[in-house]
């Protein structure tokens, strides 16, 4: 846990510099010292408390009381305390201000400093008594503990009702963060649609977007290169929009279509395919740190996570307005629904909050809840807002105007939320939760049914485990031993019972899976939470009303009036008034089309992130995105139809010298396909890709720890979950039916090798921008893995089926793999290859035909392995 904390803290310097040591200990009865010195005589307390409200204050306002304050109290406060606890302090510690009556009564992060008449409740009294070391004040550098008689004066003063003439409002403790100043940061100001910039070359632009690009290029003295060739452009837009290469027919049709609308037609066709959602949904799944297991120490499977995956894909295909999409994920359970199907969809959407990594073995349930809320805050803030709010768990954010109290305002929302992740309780899992049952009338897809045989086998196994348990318990009772703990067989049996029982409970009598989903709901008693000093569970302080970030709420934010507050949060995030939301998404879309964002740090728009390379363009995109009704498809369409997107990727020495990273888009950047596109393209070229979405996921029938499931276990269908470790993710390459990569099981720490080797997103982190490495292990994978070899055979068979002569076959292969004709030099190279290959391998094969086939297989594999196959121009 502590580990997690520290990871979240990118701003630890602030943390140490700023954290107050004043009053960070629990203001709880348990913590109140019972030592006589602190406690006023009981009768006295009773007497004072018996006074009607106001009486103490009246009494305390007497001239005598005020004189006492002026003489005995104020000088000490001014001398010993104001340095750190007054409006003039360079840095206010602990949010505590002692230089006004309101301030001293209100107290700081840990609670009220002075409660008139109540010594026990007055933390300041506790502090100066030095009884509690964590609370001891003043600090050594201010002279340490006060003389006894001074302490006695303070006691007396509080008993008097703490008379205090100091009028004036206590300003909000600054806590070292100036919210107002923080609002100056570019990303916290509303995006503005400014007038189109002037450009010298007025004819170059095809759209307003281009004007913004060109203006920047001209300013930088860069000149855009020429346009991409048609074939290049088609390949580019195919991979970008649907993650698959164009078919030969599509290439031919586009080449022949000379109408000015030819490209636009292609774009519209692609946007309308279901493959579009599979491609763009996966981009979101990177951001949503989607996976089908908990990861971390125990790594327990999440068999129903796939519903969220399918929801995301469907949402992109439906072009669900992005604001709606966000609202559903945050508070789908609180949104009205017109029927059961919509209701089910919205419930599944909240799976976003449930699929994150979790430490299920955490012993302390409160700690687990806090860590879960932290993970949710992290995913929401980085993913939707491009902010690293989780940094403020232990201390004010170091770089951004996010005070710790803001974190706990959000934490209150998530702590008032029940997260339904549904795991069985067993020895390593101390944290369980139910799942959401989807409404009866909903039209939803199902996971695969459990075959009857398997169902029966599982029941038998469960009964066996129950018998074993009963026997062992009986033995233990007979021998007068303590049954649990020491006996590993018993532990094994109870674990099996828990897991098998849970698994069986997910199916009906006939092996039909129940319609259940991961997600969230409001707790019965939502409530605000307390700031935790240093993020530690045993250091609760001031209670913070649930709410949102101050820096992004120039007007007073709407208060949480009902439920957890997720709906209010959702409305605040998915709002045109939020300066970040549209910008962050526009930037994500841009990034996925150009390989780099206008803001290169897509998950961090804060001060420690990078600034936009073209702020006017980003704002333009964000504003038009909102104006379009938050339509992602329209945004994509707008971008790919621009001249900027359709540029060639040609090298230009002069531009390169000035802008080697192509930050200003003087060309299209050359980029490597991502892992899914490489795998899908190989499958597609080999003719082995099945575009039918699968039912559920291979993980859908798995319960319990992933490691246990990876081992072949008869109870789980003889290792049907063995896929993830076999390297190809359920061996889809080896079957005749290979699903698209987006449907491969994503088990944390067991990502299929086919994806992992090409920089798949780490599924425990919000990943807006994948890495791009070039390493020998990729070459080894393409050269030597059995899966790639099998697919090369499939491609070869596909070519053989066409009954072509050698040269034709070679040309067809190039066409298939690269959507273009082979050059003469390539034909020559291929022919040289066959000569050498035959010489080297001839002894292995009994016939010329077999040798010939092996040659073509190796040739096809070489095409998969070439740089061109995995790079887009």
């Amino acid at each position: 846990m502590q580990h997690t904390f520290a990871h979240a803290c990118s701003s630890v310097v602030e943390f140490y510099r700023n954290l107050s040591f004043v009053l960070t200990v629990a203001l709880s009865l348990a913590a109140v010292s019972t030592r006589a010195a602190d406690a006023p005589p009981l009768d006295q307390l009773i007497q004072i408390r018996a006074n009607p409200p106001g009486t103490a204050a009246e009494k305390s306002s007497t001239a005598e009381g005020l004189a006492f304050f002026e003489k005995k109290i104020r000088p000490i406060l001014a001398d010993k305390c104001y340095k750190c606890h007054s409006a003039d302090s360079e840095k206010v510690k602990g949010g505590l201000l002692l230089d006004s009556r309101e301030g001293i009564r209100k107290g700081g992060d840990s609670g009220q400093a002075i409660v008139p008449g109540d010594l026990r409740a007055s933390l300041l009294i506790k502090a100066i008594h030095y009884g509690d070391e964590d609370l001891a004040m003043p600090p050594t550098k201010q002279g340490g503990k006060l003389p006894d008689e001074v302490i006695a004066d303070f006691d007396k003063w509080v008993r008097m009702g703490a008379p205090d003439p100091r009028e004036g409002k206590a300003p909000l403790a600054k806590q070292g963060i100036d919210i107002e100043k923080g609002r100056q940061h570019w990303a916290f100001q509303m995006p503005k649609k400014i007038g189109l910039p002037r450009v010298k070359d007025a004819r170059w632009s095809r759209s307003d977007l281009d004007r913004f690009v060109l203006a920047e290029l001209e300013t930088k003295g860069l000149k855009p290169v020429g346009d991409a060739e048609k074939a290049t452009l088609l390949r580019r837009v195919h991979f970008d929009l649907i993650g698959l290469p164009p078919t030969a027919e599509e290439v031919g049709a586009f080449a022949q279509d000379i109408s000015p609308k030819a490209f636009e037609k292609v774009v519209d066709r692609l946007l309308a395919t279901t493959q579009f959602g599979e491609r763009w949904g996966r981009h979101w799944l990177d951001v949503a740190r989607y996976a089908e297991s908990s990861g971390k120490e125990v790594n327990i499977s999440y068999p129903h996570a796939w519903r969220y995956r399918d929801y995301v894909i469907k949402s992109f295909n439906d072009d669900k307005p992005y604001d709606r999409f966000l609202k559903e994920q945050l508070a789908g359970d609180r949104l009205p629904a017109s029927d059961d199907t919509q209701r089910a969809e919205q419930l599944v959407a909240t799976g976003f909050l449930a699929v994150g990594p979790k430490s299920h073995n955490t012993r302390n349930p409160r700690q687990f809840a806090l860590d879960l809320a932290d993970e949710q805050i992290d995913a929401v803030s980085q993913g939707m807002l491009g902010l690293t709010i989780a940094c403020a768990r232990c201390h004010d954010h170091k770089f951004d105007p996010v005070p710790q109290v803001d974190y706990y305002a959000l934490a209150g929302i998530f702590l008032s939320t029940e997260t339904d992740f549904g795991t069985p309780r067993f020895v390593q899992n101390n944290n369980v939760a139910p799942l959401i049952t989807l409404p009866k009338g909903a039209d939803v897809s199902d996971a695969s049914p459990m075959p009857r045989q398997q169902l029966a086998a599982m029941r038998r196994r469960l009964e066996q485990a129950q018998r074993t348990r009963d026997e062992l318990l009986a033995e233990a009772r007979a021998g007068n031993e303590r049954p649990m703990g020491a006996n590993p067989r018993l532990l094994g049996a109870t674990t099996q019972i828990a897991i098998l029982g849970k698994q069986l409970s997910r199916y009906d009598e006939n092996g039909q899976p129940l319609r259940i989903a991961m997600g969230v709901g409001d707790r019965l008693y939502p409530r605000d939470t307390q700031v935790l000093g240093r993020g530690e569970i045993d250091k609760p302080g001031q209670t913070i009303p649930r709410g949102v970030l101050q820096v992004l709420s120039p007007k007073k934010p709407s208060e949480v009036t009902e439920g957890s507050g997720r709906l209010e949060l959702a409305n605040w995030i998915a709002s045109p008034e939020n300066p970040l939301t549209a910008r962050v998404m526009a930037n994500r879309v841009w990034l996925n089309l150009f390989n780099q964002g206008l803001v290169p740090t897509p998950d961090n728009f804060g001060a420690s992130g990078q600034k936009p390379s073209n702020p006017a363009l980003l704002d333009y995109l964000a504003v038009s995105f909102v104006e379009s009704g938050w339509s992602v498809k329209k945004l994509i369409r707008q971008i790919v139809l621009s001249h900027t997107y359709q540029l060639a990727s040609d090298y230009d020495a002069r531009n390169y010298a000035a802008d080697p990273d192509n930050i200003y888009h003087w060309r299209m950047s050359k980029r490597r396909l991502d892992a899914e596109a490489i795998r899908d393209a190989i499958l597609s070229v080999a003719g082995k890709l099945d575009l039918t979405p699968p039912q559920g996921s291979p993980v859908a029938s798995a319960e319990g720890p992933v490691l246990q499931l990876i081992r072949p276990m008869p109870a789980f269908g003889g290792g049907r979950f063995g896929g993830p470790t076999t390297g190809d993710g359920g061996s889809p390459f080896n079957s005749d039916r290979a699903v698209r990569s987006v449907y491969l099981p994503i088990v944390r720490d067991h990502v299929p090798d086919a994806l992992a080797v090409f920089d798949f997103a780490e599924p425990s982190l919000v990943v807006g921008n994948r890495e791009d490495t070039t390493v020998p292990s990729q070459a080894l994978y393409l050269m030597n893995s059995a899966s790639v070899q099998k697919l090369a055979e499939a491609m070869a068979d596909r070519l053989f089926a066409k009954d072509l002569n050698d040269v034709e076959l070679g040309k067809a292969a190039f066409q298939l793999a690269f959507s273009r004709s082979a050059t003469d030099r390539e034909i020559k190279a291929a022919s040289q290859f066959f000569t050498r290959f035959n010489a080297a391998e001839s002894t292995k094969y009994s016939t010329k035909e077999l040798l010939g086939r092996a040659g073509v297989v190796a040739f096809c594999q070489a095409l998969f392995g070439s740089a061109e196959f995995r790079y887009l121009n």
Partner: protein
Amino acid sequence: MNTTTNSFRFSRREALKALWSGFGYVAFAGLAARAAEKDALKASPLSAKKAHFTPRAKHVIFLCMSGGPSHVDTFDYKPKLNEDDGKSVNNRFRGGTAKLLGSPWKFAQHGQSGLWVSELFPEVAKLADDLCLIRSMQTDLPAHPQAFLQMHTGSFQFVRPSLGAWTLYGLGSENENLPGFITLNPPLNNGGSQNYGSSFLPAIYQGTRIGSETRAFGPAMAAGGEAKMPNIANTKLSAAGQRAQIDFIQELNRERVQRDQFNPQVEGVIESYELAFRMQSAVPDVMDLSKESQATRNLYGLDGGSTGNFGRQCLLARRFIEAGVRFVEVGSGGWDQHRNLKADHERNARSVDQPIAGLLTDLKQRGLLKDTLVIWGGEFGRTPFAQNDDGRDHNNKGYTIWMAGGGVKGGLAYGQTDEYGAEAVENKVHVHDFHATILHLLGLDHEKLTYRYAGRDFRLTDVKGNVVKDIMG
């Protein structure tokens, strides 16, 4: 191949000519530098290169203890901390006060040098006279991702090339059949592959990862199986047949580069194939531990339960170094004891102590230690104050790493922390200094080891770094 290269050169020359006439000197200088650098790389960018001056070390083995091992419980003896156990003092990290936590482990002096080492490292302690302790390390932030990245790349704000990548860029490799920079079992978090990445340096300089803290390598090894690199062998083709296949791939790739005029990504692909091809024979050979004698197995604790995993990694590290790999990082995770210090630090130390001692002894026996710089350390140390009674917090202001071999003085304790070990007070060594010193030991001047990118020269140490000459033998 020759024609390709020549025409590529020619087109660049043409381009340069155009630049002369048209666009001024600055642009030219950038390209000329790139061209010169290409020439310097000769046939392969991994060829061994001449150092700036005579190197003391030729190889590095970095034993990276992620999570932050406690210096005050291992190599930085603080008697006063034990005396004042339980006493409240100012917590300079978080303000307020905190209770000192005396070390649960006894320290003793070892060797001729009398270095203090705690009982957590009984075997390493026997080699005290080989150790050069730097007890005054500092890094910028006490948070894992930042400190871990800074330890590996010098920067946590920007993606920068890693120490191993810079080393490989500076010196090349002595074995063209193996990656020049290998990292075993790195953590997937804390910056992940950035910690062994090449950033703007050519991709071929990035580290090759074998296994990870959570995946494959560890469990496979712990289970007694020998670690293997996935897909290292081709089961279908003869070597000649595969070579023909790869030559065809490379021909396609070169054609691509030629058409593109300049395409470093595809050049990276070309290099990755050549290396992959050679690795196929070299890697299994180097990673085959079966020929190691029982005595060697025992030395590394290979069969010793908890030491087996790390022992295998250390033995692999030696074999890689022996084969000419320039930089090997070996990872041990889980040193982040905010709680359960007693049990978990002990468990961690036990699993690495024997293997580390075995590695040092073995390197010495084989005459490799003098050329090999062994570094042990984590991203930071821990506070002398207690956290959760039986734990310690992060400490970036003062901690210990040690070096051995590779031209450093053995039996030396350099630098000091204060009486409790809270903060370095004498001869402070910042991570930038640490990097400058490592490069210096390798014969590289950290101010001269630069790479031109986006219009300026970058170095590992940015604008900082002082070489700690006092630790050199």
